[in-house]
């Protein structure tokens, strides 16, 4: 409009200077104001008209609706002026509360029985607030709890399973029981000896190293509730390690994340975890070391049951395969 106003001003001046030339005179002046067409611009109906941001104008509304339906993220929601729409804001608040409530959830009474745990211990973190504020306390069992574990659990087993609440007890309460049940069968099938399941309250991932070392387990699996995100509080991860030892680092671990109803189902996850552990023991390592094995033939062998994995992927919802979490190497990475 600024430009038009400037040019209107020019026209104004021209008329004033030219005197009473009448319409003829002004028409002669007009073509000088017209710039030539841009090359390639078709006359009359120019292509590539600007698309407007609000409301969204998808080129393919059906595909757009599919994308929106494929995720609980709020995408293509448009705007009202320079801010979010009320519905978007309300859903955001609701999604945030789902995350907050998941962080503040506790494991239900009698959960030990549900997962068939031999015993239940608590890390050095006291209440939930201390657990959230002091990650270091959640990585270690106090001495008496550790001696309980040693005295009551089988040692020297192939697989030691820990179930910890992590940052979402709700996720563990929902997904650990079916996982553990399926995992027992998967281990039996593969001839893996499974140790006693230990329930750890106020647990961070690394506590698996301490317990695994104390019990001299060959591998360890730690089921923990994932840090909730907007609208999600039900994701569980399985952290896996070969030879759990206190000196282990996150790069020694691998993880299968997004174990939940919309992601990898617990039963499917149990099968994949068992496959991974068999592979760990075969190659004698886990984590980045294993995935970055220099020998390509070795690396090819390190991909267990490729055909079955592809079948599994077909049955796994879009975002549910595997992802990186807390520095551990994601299970899927070695396929990339």
């Amino acid at each position: 409009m600024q430009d038009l106003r400037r040019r209107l001003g020019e026209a104004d001046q021209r008329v004033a200077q030219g005197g009473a030339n009448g319409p003829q005179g002004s028409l002669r002046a007009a073509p000088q104001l017209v710039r030539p067409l841009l090359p390639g611009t078709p006359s009359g109906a120019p292509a590539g008209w600007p698309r407007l941001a609000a409301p969204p104008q998808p080129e393919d509304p059906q595909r757009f609706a599919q994308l929106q339906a494929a995720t609980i993220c709020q995408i293509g929601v448009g705007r009202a002026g320079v801010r979010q729409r009320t519905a978007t804001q309300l859903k955001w608040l609701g999604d945030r509360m789902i995350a907050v409530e998941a962080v503040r959830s506790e494991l239900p009474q009698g959960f030990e029985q549900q997962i068939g745990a031999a015993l239940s211990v608590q890390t050095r973190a006291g209440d939930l607030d201390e657990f959230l504020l002091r990650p270091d306390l959640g990585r270690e069992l106090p001495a008496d709890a550790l001696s309980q574990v040693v005295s009551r659990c089988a040692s020297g087993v192939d697989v030691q399973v820990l179930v910890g609440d992590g940052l979402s007890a709700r996720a563990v309460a929902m997904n650990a029981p079916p996982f553990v049940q399926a995992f027992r069968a998967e281990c039996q099938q593969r001839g893996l000896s499974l140790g006693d399941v230990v329930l750890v309250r106020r647990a961070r991932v690394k506590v698996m190293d301490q317990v695994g070392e104390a019990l001299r387990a060959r591998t360890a699996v730690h089921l923990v509730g994932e840090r909730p995100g907007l609208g999600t509080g039900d994701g569980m991860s399985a952290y896996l390690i070969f030879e759990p030892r206190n000196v282990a680092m996150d790069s020694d671990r691998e993880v299968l994340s997004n174990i939940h109803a919309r992601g990898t189902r617990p039963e499917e996850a149990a099968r994949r975890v068992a496959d991974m552990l068999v592979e760990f023991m075969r190659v004698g390592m886990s984590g980045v070391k294993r995935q970055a094995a220099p020998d390509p033939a070795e690396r090819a062998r390190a991909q267990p049951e490729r055909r079955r994995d592809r079948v599994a992927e077909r049955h796994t919802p879009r975002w549910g395969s595997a992802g990186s979490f807390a520095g551990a190497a994601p299970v899927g990475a070695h396929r990339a």
Partner: protein
Amino acid sequence: MLDPIRPKVLATRFIPNAPEELLAAYGLSGDAHPSLALITCDQDDALYVALDEATKQAPVDVVFARSLYAGAAHASGPLSGEILGILGGQSPADVREGLAACVRCLEHDACFYTANADGSLAIFPHVVHAIGSYLARESGLEVGAPLAYLIAPPLEAWVGVDAALKAADVRLVKNFAPPTETNFAGAYLTGSLEQCEAAAVAFAEAIVAVGHQPRVL
């Protein structure tokens, strides 16, 4: 000459949740547009453009927009002006943002211009760079198309639109023949953005010449 004549917003009101029977009387539905924003203004064409601007800035529709008979100089009341516009949306916040965009457009963009020395001749040589859903519906063009929105009194409109069509590579999309509610006339033209601007300039220039010398015989 060619000075902007700023439109005056006369009254605005929100209806957060309009009654179904009142909506139905206007051919609307409470499911689609329960929340309304009403605005009156003393320049009908400036408000049409501003209402369209609102559809670009917020998820609202122009659910009602009509010029009132005889124009702002003969209004039915001090707040009637020459147009009533209504934006409809799904929430009060949506129509509030829509109306805010509408008022911004009236304050800073769309307006009539004087086309003679004493300012008694008013013309509307406006270019919309990219039309929203309302002007798309009114013009039959696609959302995002450039539009030259050219309005003047009847004879001046003929002369101006003639000059615009001859001076620029544009086509006539819709014509407004007199008499209209306000007895103005004009046309929607489209083409590339720069051709629309050239058309608007030619339109204004031709009418300035008419104002300068009304009679040639």
